[in-house]
């Protein structure tokens, strides 16, 4: 997952964050072999990119979290219904078993009557 993928333009904050991260890595690697006169400039550019990335990530994650919080509540509905279904099936099973035992007992008494 990087800016070199087939997607022509970033669509989300996450995509932009990845582009900024790619730029930060590129600036940092360029610093390794940079001539002394260029190094401070590259260092400043890298720091600026990183700062922008931090701001974007913090805000983007906050927005995503708000959306997901609402959806977590919504997902509890089908989960609750499934738990209820399980309880109903368990109840049916237990009721049938109890009824069978009662009828069995009654049947065993019948010849004695």
């Amino acid at each position, binding site marked *: *997952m990087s800016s070199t993928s087939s997607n022509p333009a970033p669509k*989300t*904050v*996450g*995509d932009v*964050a*990845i582009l900024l*991260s790619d730029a*930060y*890595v590129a600036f*940092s*690697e360029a*610093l390794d072999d940079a001539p002394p006169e260029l*190094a*401070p400039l590259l*260092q400043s550019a890298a720091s600026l990119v*990183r700062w922008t*990335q*931090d701001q974007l*990530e*913090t805000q*983007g*994650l*906050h*927005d*995503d*979290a*708000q*959306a*997901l*919080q609402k*959806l*977590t509540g*919504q*997902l*509890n*509905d*089908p*989960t609750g*219904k*499934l*738990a209820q*279904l*399980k309880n109903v*099936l*368990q109840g*049916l*099973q*237990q*009721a*049938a*078993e109890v*009824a*069978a*035992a009662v*009828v*069995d007992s*009654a*049947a065993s008494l*019948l010849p004695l009557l």
Partner: protein
Amino acid sequence: MCVACIVLSCCARPKDANLTAFANATSTLATAAKNASSLDVQIDAKLRAAAAARNYAAGSPLKFDPKGGTFITGKSDADWKAVTAFLDAVNGYATALSQANDAKLVGGVTGGITSLGTALANANAASALANPNNQQRINLISGAVADLVGVVGNGYAAIEIRAAMNEAQPILQAARGPLKDSLKIVFADATSKLEDYKQALRCRLSIAGARPGTQASCPPGKDIHVADAAPPTSLEKYDAYLAAWQDYLAIQASVQALGNLPAAVDAMIAAHEKLKDDPDNSAALAGFLQAVGDIAAKEGQFEALNG
């Protein structure tokens, strides 16, 4: 009998194995996402330690005050909890789906009803000893009733399960964007921190390889004057290089695994949609299982390299 066939064919429950595998895979995905933030924090802690060590090596006064790292900038912990809470909720839903579809549960209902039918037949038989034809008829009716109840139980479970899946699908679709986005944000942050850590390792190697009286190459403006009594041996330099390389590779493998998480979210939602429409389709899960398997394998690689 034909009615039973029709009911079974239109309302069959999904395959147990499919829903169990789906639930297990959502659990792996939730764990991998939690590991993602732990990794980000872990790299941050290494960076802080490297910066403190570099300052000490450069002659700054000794400050031994180890501190843990922070997630992103330290302001997103609560937001990340909301992201992982959603993945936990997906796992909870998938587990409930698997449990409600459990063959033993539905089979247990059918078994209970069958026992009841048999008991009733025995009771009737006891009261109608003199007539063998009645006995046979009662057994047949009891068996048929038990079969029918089994079919209805299956059908009821199937209808409820499909209704729940239909309700969950649009929620998963709506979550796709923010979920993938937040995972990309963590990946981007960990990638940048990994680059910083690579620079820190370069600095360390430069110190290890420098001759006395020279400058070790650290980030611009932070070069370190090396004043050791004796130059390092070739073997020491060799070992230092390999140690730094292995340290970097271990973290890199895990960061790469993070990069696969958004695709795993896509695969999960696609698998759920296919299972909803065709519950018996084992192939529907293939992409999702492959995606979480790859992530787990890369995380295992990280664990192995970390010893």
